[in-house]
């Protein structure tokens, strides 16, 4: 988990945040189950087949989707392919370094990928052009350009928004088609500070907590992916609590970012 520029969060800041939490509010005035302000610009990169610029509070990510033809995996000859890659760019935070993805960005990419993949959001069967020979490959690439906590949710909502508008050409000479979509998964990431569970942590809240959990659900109320992170733990009661919070908060996000699409 990234720390602030010098690697530690001060006692002063910790006690300030804790004192505020006791009153049911967070340092920035949010309630425990309240997201930060979400702004999404769709089609931010017109050259990509789908794209979105997401601002979740001060966290900013750019999602770009490229769809190209290629060979299927030998064990799934009738399915298109999707891959997800997250670049935690060094411009996003003073201590992020250039270079290949580290374990933090690989975990983030895999959690985002799992939510989209296990929901079967993209209908990969329809992306098969010629079984065993030619399928469409959906490359999901995400640039994290400004970091203030909760990359996973910012990335997931950006991917869902970008895929909802993405178009591709199965035949280079033919017409553009919308990417076949089954549903709209939304991830909600929560952390535990003391015994309080709060969603959409900003950087300072991430630094203060020692347990994080992400629950990704679809609009049918099904749980599609989970990931617990960091060294702390949750009780089973708290796990139930986070699932409920994920569904409630996730429905709100879905409504907000996709209202006009669905």
């Amino acid at each position, binding site marked *: 988990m990234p720390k602030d*520029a*010098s*690697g*530690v*969060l*001060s*006692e*002063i*800041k910790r*006690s*300030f945040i804790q*004192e*505020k939490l006791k009153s049911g509010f967070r340092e920035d005035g949010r309630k425990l189950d309240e997201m930060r302000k979400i702004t999404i610009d769709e089609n931010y990169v017109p050259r990509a087949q789908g794209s979105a610029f997401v601002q979740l509070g001060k966290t900013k990510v750019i999602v770009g989707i490229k769809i190209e033809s290629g060979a299927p995996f030998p064990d799934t000859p009738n399915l298109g392919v999707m891959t997800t890659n997250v670049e935690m760019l060094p411009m996003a935070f003073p201590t992020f370094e250039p270079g290949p993805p580290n374990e933090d960005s690989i975990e983030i990419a895999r959690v985002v990928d799992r939510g989209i993949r296990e929901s079967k959001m993209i209908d990969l069967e329809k992306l098969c052009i010629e079984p065993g020979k030619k399928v469409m490959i959906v490359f999901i690439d995400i640039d994290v350009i400004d970091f203030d906590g909760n990359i996973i949710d910012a990335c997931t909502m950006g991917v869902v928004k970008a895929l909802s508008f993405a178009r591709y050409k199965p035949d280079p000479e033919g017409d553009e088609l919308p990417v076949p979509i089954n549903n709209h998964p939304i991830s909600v990431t929560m952390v535990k500070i003391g015994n309080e569970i709060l969603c959409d942590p900003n950087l300072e809240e991430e630094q203060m907590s020692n347990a994080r959990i992400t629950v990704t659900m679809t609009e049918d109320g099904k749980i599609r992916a989970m990931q617990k992170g960091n060294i702390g733990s949750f009780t089973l009661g708290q796990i139930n609590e986070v699932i409920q919070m994920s569904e409630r908060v996730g429905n709100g996000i879905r409504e907000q970012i996709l209202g006009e699409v669905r």
Partner: protein
Amino acid sequence: MIDTDDRKEIVFPGDIVEKGELNMRNGVFRSVDGSYRSQFFGIVQKGDEFVDVVPFHGTYVPRRNDKVIGKIIDIGPSMWTVDIKSPYMTMLHMNDTPWKLNSGEIKRAIGVGDYVYAKVQTVNEVKESWITLKEPGLGLRKLEGGHIIYVPAPKVPRIIGKAGSMVNMIKDATNTRIVIGQNGLIWIEGQIEGVLKATSAIELIKSMAHTNGLTDRMMEFLKIEKKGEE
């Protein structure tokens, strides 16, 4: 709202700065053509004697006798490494504190993540600095409790105001204690509402540090805040 007469002159890197009868001081350089030019994107400040160009943003570089706020980022057997937002290393030795400490046990006095209000004692030839907590009468100490915010170091004089007028006004209106480091870190202590109000007052100065008539506007701002409470 202020009219344009209130605006100070904004200059860009390489722009000519007219010195008139005054002497050039900070933020300018002598160009090959003999003219004085700005090093910064910032504002021209003309005093009784000197002309300075003050950048809107900028890095703090320690000078001897500056009072700064620093965060402890590492502990050795007999000294702490302190982050004072300078690109160069800053250290505090156990003998430069008011306490009797034994080597190896100094983290009992100050731990990683703690803040100190200290004076820059020496700056060596490679700009590494040593700070001290020892000089009495200056309020140097470990800062307990409170809240820390940051403004770019070039804006610190505006937040202090003439002879402390600006910061005193904020302290009085918000019922807080405030300590300002010349490196741009500011410590605010008090009831949460007061701290938040003082923070937004400082944020306002930060965004308007280049304008005149700031004191009047701050008075107005603090009064408006008070009304909102009633």
